């Protein structure tokens, strides 16, 4: 049964080998540092190589957090629709009632979020 995961394992192996190869080549040919302090960019949050445009010390709007949290919550709701879709036909008419009860609360919550301007970007 788990044989079907062999391609995934192969994929992981190829990825691991590629990464290891890049790192090894980098260590051989790249500049060498004794300490991390020699590369200040190594301790920036994303280590992306380019310098920060500005020191981000100002506070960001709480809306960013709100959007992210609502995304996760609605994502969960979406995930739970998937099992329903698989068996909806075999369960028959009761499945319609079940999913309407489920979606009813989702819709009420959505109306609440919408009317509170949680999805408004201004």
């Amino acid at each position, binding site marked *: 049964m788990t044989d079907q995961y062999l391609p995934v394992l192969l994929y992981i192996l190829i990825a691991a080998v590629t990464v290891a190869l890049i790192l090894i080549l980098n260590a051989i040919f790249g500049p060498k540092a004794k300490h991390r302090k020699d590369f200040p960019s190594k301790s920036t*949050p*994303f280590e992306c190589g380019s310098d920060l445009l500005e020191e981000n010390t100002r506070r960001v709007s709480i809306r960013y*957090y709100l959007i992210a949290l*609502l995304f996760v919550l609605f994502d*969960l*709701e979406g995930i739970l629709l998937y099992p329903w879709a698989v068996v909806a036909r075999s369960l028959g008419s009761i499945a319609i009632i079940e999913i309407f009860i489920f979606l009813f609360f989702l819709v009420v*919550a959505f109306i609440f979020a919408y009317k509170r301007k949680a999805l408004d970007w201004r």
Partner: protein
Amino acid sequence: MDFNVIMYIFFGIVSIAGGVILVGAKHPIRGAMGLLTTMLALAAMYAQLHAHTIAVFQVIIYAGAVMVLIVYFIMLLDIKSEDYAKPFSKFFWFGAPLLLFAVFYFIFKLSMVIKSDGAFFATLNPSLVSPNAPEAFGGIKIFSKELLTKYLFAFEFVSTLLFAAIVAVIAIVQLDWKGKSNE
């Protein structure tokens, strides 16, 4: 030993290593990557146990949505390197060996009991899934069938729970609330 069992143990070790990286890393993104490792290794373990649906959910929800959330917050907070480069508290060097000792002592005790109680473990199936498990166990079809019949109330209850969580998030943020605290 079965190849599946070896892989199961391997992924178990990987997930613990990810957890150690998460706690030990002094760099938030590295910690997040450790967490991602743990989540993916857990998904692999679920797949080994034939819980395919749960494995997929683990990848979509945790490795997908929750990791996006965490990386996004690290980006927004932009913690300065000085803050996370702080050394561990001196209690760490006291507590960590104590914890390790407790864990190993427990494992040791458990293994002693298991040794003396071999009969019970002989009844367990050495492979990861019980031979009594139905065909297509852990697949999306059988999972959904159970979820929407046997655990129907829990399914509906989860939608109310998510509703509560949405209300809680919006209540904390208080977007269109002009009234400030009067203290």
